[in-house]
């Protein structure tokens, strides 16, 4: 897991949930962070798309509801892109 990716993701989540970045860990999920509701979740997804230059399929938006799943998705997308 890249620290850079984690930090970028944590910053996005912190921005939209108004939780301090230091409290966001690899184990954080939409259930453990109070303000991470559906509206916040989509805002996070849209910012992830901008920051990582991705286009996230709408069908999996609901599945990216934890720091771990987001990191896995981003790293897989980066691997696929570099493999081209």
């Amino acid at each position, binding site marked *: 897991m890249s620290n850079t990716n984690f930090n970028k993701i944590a910053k996005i989540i912190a921005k939209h949930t108004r939780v301090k970045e230091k409290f966001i860990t690899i184990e954080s999920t939409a259930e453990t962070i109070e303000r991470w*509701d559906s509206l916040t979740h*989509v805002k996070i997804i*849209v910012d992830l798309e901008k920051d990582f230059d991705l286009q996230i399929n*709408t*069908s999996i*938006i*609901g599945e990216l509801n934890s720091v771990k799943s987001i990191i896995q998705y981003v790293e897989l997308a980066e691997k696929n892109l570099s493999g081209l």
Partner: protein
Amino acid sequence: MLFTDPVFFFLFFPIVILGFHFFNFFSSNVALLFLTISSLIFYSWDQPLYVFILVYVVVISWIMGNFIRLSQNNKKKIFVCSIILILLPLIFYKYFYFIISNIDIIFLSVSYDIMPENIMVVAKSIILPIGISFYTFQSISYLIDVYTGKIKEKNSFINYSAYVTMFPQLVAGPIVRFKEISKQLISPHITADNIRIGTYFFIIGLSKKVLIADTLAPFVDLIFDGENDNIQNFYIIFIGTVAYALQLYFDFSGYSEMAIGIASYFGFKFPQNFNSPYKAKSLTEFWQRWHMTLSFWVRDYIYFPILANNLRRSMGTVSKYSPHLIAMLIFGIWHGAGWNFLLWGGGHGVALIFENMFLNNLKSTISKIVKIIFTFSVVLLLYIPFRSSDIESTFEMWLALTNFDIEGLLYFLKLINLNIALSILAIPLSLYLVFFRKNIYEMNKELNFNSALLLSVLLIISILVMLSRPYIPFLYFQF
């Protein structure tokens, strides 16, 4: 056929569960085929001809799913076409009369009588096939998942038809996604844990329906269906609405738990449908706890796509919050073809928008109890259009909430009979259970002497009560 029917209890279920596991010993495909045929029998028991609608939805959605999967150039057109084909029966049976009667009203208002009387009469007499809203949405979720690439593999007709038709969830959910069950369908197997959990869920669910929900019913029916203007005051309507909130929860969650329990006996794990919804500290949280499978369906297939599209284009406040309203209006209209359901859904949509815009910043400063009471109050207020027969009754009841006259309360006391009295007595116990006790997912489900005794007593009492009472339908069968 219902889970509380003696025919189901003592004949259908034992035969099907034994037959399923017998055939499964030789071939899972044969077992699934047996389950599908049994489910069609289950469905056609009370409405024989409507089984053809179910078969239509299953066959068309499976065929179109394959066309979508295999298509290179016309994927979107095939997808749109498939959704229209699947929605046709639902639109006809559920919404046709609502649509044409409202068109008629619009044209009549400009003195133009457009609708022939005989069409209106025929449309009004259309009977809703049981479960059609559930299995239609289930099939649509499959088609969307195939279209978006979430389901990539080819699926056998036997597996797919078992998924849609399996009787535990066929008529009132939970709404299961194909990916949640596809691996389970390949090799269903039962363990001692399945039996233990299935037993807990089925008996607790049955008790919730028979012992609590049905006991609350007489009082609720008196308040909402009785023609007693004299009792239209704050006290009676408030208590009546609380009783309805409890009846609806115990009835629907009870049914869901029975469905989950029965599925467990087949070796299938269904998703959770209720998570103590009245303990929610906000409306957002309420919709993560109430009828979860439908709520998440609307969130994933309606709300997320619309909102993501709007936010990507950096649109303004209206575009940011309108998906809440759209999603909840769809939620409302799914429940019924009536303006009162649209009012219920729209009311929740507006309340969610208000909560997101103004109340989220206050969250940490308000105590948990106040948040729960406030959320429950909003839910109660909006249950009035949900339960009322029409818009007119809704507004009459809302207006009556401003009437604090004690005379109506005294008049009501004269209407109390044994059934109404039992209903009222059931309210405090029900409130205690929903606010202070663990739900079935949180409770210890060990099977020891004490728990076995308790479950046996609950089962016997539920059966005896069930057999002694006139049948009270599951509330969600009307949707």
